[in-house]
């Protein structure tokens, strides 16, 4: 019986030591998934998620501090991809409705080019003293331009629904 106890104890110590060595030897300095998630995010550092840029958002998502659905420019497809990547279930119910995009109000735009400089995706075109225009296909709706406009001439408005963007709604739930 003593032999058995001794053997088991020895085995425990030996394996424990091995585990300790392995933990030291194969220590991962930084979480590689942060970089991968950052690469998936839009990269415009728009701050709509409430974080300081996309890499901060990636860290926060991995730690579970913010949901994967917090990125409006990414939309549902990104949220789903992130959910799959991070192995979390995704509740997309809050992400319905068309994305909001920036629109320049032409009457009040003074052509100051401040918004051009602020835009993280170069989605606004224009020249000094000319009315600026937002190219909708490049706008992520981050709102950086809204904050810098001195005449409050930029608004985020939902993308108008057209025959091209219209989709069949999900059928109403069944009686059960």
């Amino acid at each position, binding site marked *: 019986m003593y032999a058995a106890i001794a053997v088991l104890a020895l085995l425990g110590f030996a394996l424990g030591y091995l585990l300790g060595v392995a933990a030291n030897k194969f220590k991962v300095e930084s979480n590689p998934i942060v970089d991968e998630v950052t690469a998936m995010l839009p990269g415009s550092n728009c701050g709509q998620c409430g974080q300081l840029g996309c890499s901060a958002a990636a860290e926060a998502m991995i730690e579970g501090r913010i949901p994967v659905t917090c990125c409006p420019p990414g939309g549902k497809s990104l949220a789903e991809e992130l959910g799959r990547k991070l192995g979390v279930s995704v509740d997309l119910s809050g992400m319905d409705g068309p994305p909001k995009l920036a629109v320049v109000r032409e009457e009040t735009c003074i052509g100051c080019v401040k918004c051009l400089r602020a835009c993280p995706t170069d989605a606004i075109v224009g020249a000094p003293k000319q009315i600026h225009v937002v190219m909708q296909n490049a706008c992520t709706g981050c709102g950086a331009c809204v904050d810098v406009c001195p005449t409050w001439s930029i608004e985020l408005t939902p993308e108008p629904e057209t025959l091209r963007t219209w989709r*069949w*709604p999900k*059928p109403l739930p069944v*009686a*059960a």
Partner: protein
Amino acid sequence: MSSNPMTTAPLISGPHAHSEESVAKVMATVMVALLPATLFGFWAYGWPAIFLFTITLLSTLAGEAIGLQLAGKPQRLFLLDGSAILTGWLLALSLPPWAPWWVGVVGGLLATLIGKQIFGGIGQNLFNPAMLARVALLISFPVEMTQWVGPHPITTAAAPGFLDGLAITFSGIPNVDSVTGASILGHAKTELTRGIGLTSSLPGHYDATAFSLGTVAGSMGETSGVLLLLGGIVLLMRKVITWHIPVAMLGSVILLSAIFHHVNPERFADPLFHLMAGGMMLGAFFIATDMVTSPTGRIGQLVFGIGCGVLVWVIRTFGAFPEGVAFAVLLMNAATPLIDHYLRPRIYGRRRDGRPLELAERKES
């Protein structure tokens, strides 16, 4: 009226035409198909059978109502869809006709509460609720569940009257041993274990004609193979079921029993015996074909049917229980999700493995 345009219509996708089928109609058709065998059971086993049938049906409905209440679902809609009645009906048909009242009550509650509502109600259950209840009863109350009475046709003097029937159902069968006996499957199994072969044990107990008609001891609605076959044909013609499951199940039993009977008639019963004894016909046309718990693809249905047939034969021939239909169906029920997952129909323009067809590939023309 024609001058003012209609206001915005509901956003509904097609089709805007319907076959006018409904769940209630499907269930009603199955009940109609069961009617001949049921009425025969009432006639053959008299008032006690009618009482037990009624009690079982009411208990099944009560179980369903309790389940719906607990789940917060609309009672009227689901109680009237016919599925609970059908479950109770099938369960009653598989019970010994003179079984005491509480067998029906316990069975009925088990069927809908444990067999169906716990899974989420209609369409969600993994196992056939009637068979689940029957097996639970058989294992829990083996004595009551194997007391078979021979036919006491209601039109003859031997039949118990209305009051006698009440007494049988609610306080037990008087002179149990003189009226009840084993089923033919039980008899054959017992004799085999005693070393007596089928050629000596069956004569005098087994008569193919009587067994086909159903004038023998057995469950309330299982005995009349001919009437059940008639009901099955009704189901096939009304397209409630397809031929795949019954044909595969009966076919595999016939094949297996024919081969083994040919090799050793002492040990293995012949195909007709297997078809007409016990719950084979009811099982093949009404139990195994239960939509909720059987595969939906045609190939899957064939595999399911063959699985049921082989298991019935194996359990009857080698198992501890003399009858195996309920067990076989339940076991195959468990395999249904797997069968449906792997045996899908081939998609148009794709190969079986899901890859697109080759461009040049085409059938002979």
